[in-house]
């Protein structure tokens, strides 16, 4: 079981992802509504895994990924995004993201990614 922080500006996505993760036996220890909020909560909560949406206002997922990696280079980050952002995905992997999952969420695919981390 992993302690997970969800960072996504969409309440719907946070709720659906939280349900999937909790049904998969994981604990969601916090939710953040944008990259800046995510960075603050990452420092407060020290999650095992952080899920980061890419398209967010204030600070987007790539900026948040970079900032979190500066705080903790070993942080395990899963990028979450709609299909179609492959360039961003490549950038994210270069910046140190461990994995990525795409929306709309499919519980089996998400749990397979989280469980192997």
């Amino acid at each position, binding site marked *: 079981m992993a302690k997970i922080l969800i960072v996504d500006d969409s309440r719907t996505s946070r709720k*659906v992802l939280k349900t999937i993760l909790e049904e998969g036996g994981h604990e969601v220890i916090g939710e953040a509504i944008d990259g800046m909020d995510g960075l603050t909560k990452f420092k407060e909560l020290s999650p095992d895994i952080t899920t980061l949406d890419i*398209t967010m*206002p204030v600070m987007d997922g790539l900026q948040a990924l970079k900032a979190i990696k500066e705080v903790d280079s070993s942080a395990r980050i899963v990028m979450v995004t*709609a299909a179609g*952002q492959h360039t961003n995905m490549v950038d994210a992997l270069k910046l140190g993201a461990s994995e990525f999952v795409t929306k709309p969420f499919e519980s089996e695919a998400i749990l397979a990614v989280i469980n192997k981390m």
Partner: protein
Amino acid sequence: MVNQLFGNYLVRKGLISKEQLEQAIESQKKVRVKLGLIAVSEKLMTAEEAAEVNKLQAVMDKRFGDIAVEKGFLTDDQVGRLLGLQGNQYLTFAQAITDNGFLTLEAFEQAFLDYQKELGFTATDMDSIKSGDADRIVPLFVPEGTDSVQVEYISVAVRTILRLIDSDAYIGSASWGRNESFDGAAVQNLRGDRAAGFSFGGNGKALLSIAVPFGKEEFPEVDLDALDSVAEFINCINGLFATGISGKLKLDMLPPSYRNGLVKVSADRLVKMPVYISGQEVMLMCAFGSTISI
């Protein structure tokens, strides 16, 4: 989609009732189309020939196709092709309507010809409608001057609605617009090689027809949480569109936004297409070459 498009025409013309349409669509899910009905629909046999084979089939332990070949009504190749059409949505709808006794096959076929006249479509266009394939149907319902990329954009949206929201959803004729007003709307723009934008607007509780199935949550009204669900659905459509078009155009998605109250949806030029989801009319709006503001 053909069952809803043509079915609503039948209701509008008073040929069947709304309740009969609902019953036919429900029973269509269990229908296996008879070969005789397909053969008549494909104009390879007359209704009388099909009836003759049906009578013979009642007293012979043989399949319809075998008897039709023996009688010289069909060739083996034709039977093979007809068997391939058994899952066709138009034909399963025809069978559901005729099996329930709402219309005869002749009346059904005549109404389809009248529907073609009303739409002003060619026989090829009607074959596209019969196919039930969103990619073939959408181009028939967009206004003149719609960019091919925009057609692709709308097709992705309609396919995604059918896949994730309501498999019985259907579309109406689209038109050009600039300033549209709704009780609630959500939008997401894309930038990159070209600007583009996509929005759903609706009045009353219409947008709940998307928000509830996509968010898997009941909402009492079209509040901001419900609109967030609609915005996330748009995000999925845009992601799929951006993936599909990535060989030709590079597009990045911007964060979606949404509002309720009296909302004005504006763009230099947008295609607005009514989509009927679970009995509600939602307006799908798509701009290409400019963004959409709310």
